[in-house]
Every structure is written in structure tokens, then in C-alpha cells.
């Protein structure tokens, strides 16, 4: 297995997982699950960028894109989940 083919396989795996995560994040109707997948997609994207020799941007994407963006979306997802449970199930939580 020459150096080059190993690299191509590695790139292939990276890209396929990236696209798979993106598809999963987009297609999942449940808000919380979508946000989780989106955070995972963000982290994986920073991994891909690290592979493309862009460390600064990878760090920023991990910290801001996946981290803070994810946290904000998580808060929104929890609020969306809370109102949807309140509107249809009368909301079990106090």
C-alpha cells in the first residue's frame, strides 16, 4: 500500500464522514438531535481543515463554529423542545 493510496483513502474517509454528518444533521426532524449532529459536523469540519494545513481556521471553527454556535443552537433547541411538549402534552415539566 503506497504512501499516496493511503493518503487518498484517508481523504476519502474524511470527506465521506463529513458529508454523512451533514446529511444526518439536515435530515433529522427532531431539533435536539439535529443540533448534536451539527456540532459533530462542525468538529469534523475543523478536523478536515486541519488536514488541509489550515490550523488557525480549524481552531476557530472548533471554538466558535461548533462550540459557541452549537451552544446557542442547543439552547434554542431545548426551548423549541420545551414549547412543543407544552403545546401538545400540556408539558410534564414544572
Amino acid at each position, binding site marked *: 500500500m503506497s504512501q499516496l493510496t493511503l493518503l487518498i483513502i484517508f481523504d476519502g474517509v474524511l470527506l465521506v464522514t463529513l458529508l454523512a454528518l451533514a446529511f444526518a444533521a439536515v435530515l433529522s426532524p427532531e431539533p435536539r438531535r439535529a443540533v448534536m449532529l451539527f456540532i459533530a*459536523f462542525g468538529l469534523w469540519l475543523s478536523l478536515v481543515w486541519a488536514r*488541509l494545513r489550515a490550523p488557525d*481556521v480549524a481552531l*476557530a471553527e472548533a471554538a466558535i463554529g461548533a462550540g459557541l454556535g452549537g451552544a446557542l443552537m442547543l439552547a434554542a433547541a431545548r426551548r423549541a423542545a420545551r414549547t412543543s411538549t407544552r403545546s401538545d402534552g400540556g408539558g410534564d415539566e414544572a
Partner: protein
Amino acid sequence: MLTAQFLYGAAGLMLFVLGLWSFLVHEPLLRKIIALNITGAGVFHVFIAIAYRGDTAPPDPVPHALVLTGIVVAVSATALALMLGARLQDAEEEDQSR
């Protein structure tokens, strides 16, 4: 080096198209925002793919800086959109309860 650039760039474009599709098709706010972020990530990914110049030559720093700025802009826009959505939800709840 060219094939890697093309491969990753193509992936970026696929992300762009995927995000665009999701934005146009899905109605709930959170899914639209996720779609927008994925489209943005796709475009940023194309920039980074262009900047990559093989393992020997150092990569082109200009697209890196552009993507850095783009990420911060994207996150601030997402934050505002989420808070507008939250405010809208509260206003709708007020209307329902009234």
C-alpha cells in the same frame, strides 16, 4: 495537489447545495438556521480547499483569513437569528395564552 483541491472543493460545493436544499424545503426555524450554517461551511470549505497547495508548499493565508472572518460573521448572524426566533416564540405564546 490539484486532485486534492478539486476533491475537497467538490465536497464544499455539495455541502452548499445540500444546505440550500434544506433551507428551501424545511420550514422550522432551527432547521433553516442549521441549513444556512451548512451552506456557509460549504463555501468556507471551498475557500480552504483553494488555499491548500499540497504538503510541500505552505498554504495561501488570504483565504484562511477570509474564512476566519466569515466564521465570526456567521456565528453572530446565527445568534441574532436564534434570539429573534426566541422572541417570536414568546410573542406567539403570549398571543395563544391571551
